[in-house]
């Protein structure tokens, strides 16, 4: 076989096959960080921004997106809530099967009324939760959430965990989405959790 024929029949196809090869590494099913095996999400009992008792069990059968924050948060919480509102909007008719729960880390300033008014600016379907400081602290411990008061002049802000927890329809803590991810990542994961 002459060299040109050898190159044409063997080398070039080999090279093309290698160059166009696709990755065989399996992509993770969820975009969020996944807990494996999943555990039952810790139950909680708070005062809801809708005036009712807020428990996790109340939303069994729905996918719950659980976020921690405070209404005077300057950047992280508004960004997160806007992203979640965008995701819920993109879900269309499936949005009814998704519940966003926003639990305050600042019970001194966030009562049910403040939470309700604040959340309504993003999505009227969002529910806020507040309660006694010790109750909220226990809930944060159960979820591995941190929150710390940071004095600013005469006032203060709160440093807190900004990730969002994804709880499936059976109440299992399946995943945790880091702050800053796009709405489409939530849509992707929620669809997967709803399909299972």
């Amino acid at each position, binding site marked *: 076989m002459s060299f040109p024929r050898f*190159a044409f029949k063997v080398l070039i196809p080999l090279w093309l096959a*290698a160059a166009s090869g696709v990755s065989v590494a399996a992509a*993770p099913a969820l975009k969020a*960080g996944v807990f494996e095996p999943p555990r039952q999400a810790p139950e909680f009992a708070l005062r809801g921004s809708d005036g009712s008792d807020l428990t996790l069990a109340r939303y069994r059968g729905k996918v719950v997106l659980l976020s921690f924050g405070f209404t005077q948060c300057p950047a992280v919480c508004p960004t997160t809530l806007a992203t979640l509102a965008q995701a819920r909007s993109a879900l269309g008719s499936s949005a009814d099967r998704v519940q966003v729960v926003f639990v305050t880390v600042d019970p001194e300033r966030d009562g049910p009324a403040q939470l309700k008014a604040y959340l309504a600016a993003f999505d009227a379907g969002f529910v806020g939760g507040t309660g006694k400081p010790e109750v909220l602290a226990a809930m944060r411990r*159960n979820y*591995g959430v941190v929150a710390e008061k940071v004095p600013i002049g005469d006032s203060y802000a709160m440093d807190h965990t*900004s990730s969002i927890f994804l709880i499936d329809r059976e109440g299992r803590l399946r995943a945790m989405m880091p702050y800053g991810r796009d709405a489409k990542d939530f849509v992707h994961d929620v669809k997967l959790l709803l399909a299972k």
Partner: protein
Amino acid sequence: MRDGEVRAGWRTFATRSSWLLASMLVAALAWAALAPIEPASRDELFEIPRGTWARRMAGDKVEILPDTVRLTLGIKDVLLLRNLDDVPQVFGPALIMPGQSFRLPFEVASTYSFACSAHAKGAMNVIVDPGPAKGWPTLRWRALQWLQPSA
């Protein structure tokens, strides 16, 4: 067969062999520069060994997860944290139960900061670098891996 014919035959053989070797080298370099990098695993694994909590309780300062973890998109872009201890542990960004793992994939090159009570600074960073582009960067990356497999 005459001596001249034998010599001419060898010359032809040597020429063709040189062409073959050169073309194989070119093909190998082209593959190394253009073929996608397919690592055996994209997981960057950190494990809490059994007995860590007991060691901490005894005053032993056990550091498992560095303040900053560096990942590379498409190559090592999944942070995998596993708790092999007997008690729940806050490990990086998550509270992980005994025997449980937390697998966090990254798809965008950036610096990610997580609140983490297990770190003295109260936070840990994950820096995700872009993967090497096709061509010279990929060739260079493969060469470095070949020369320094642990790099």
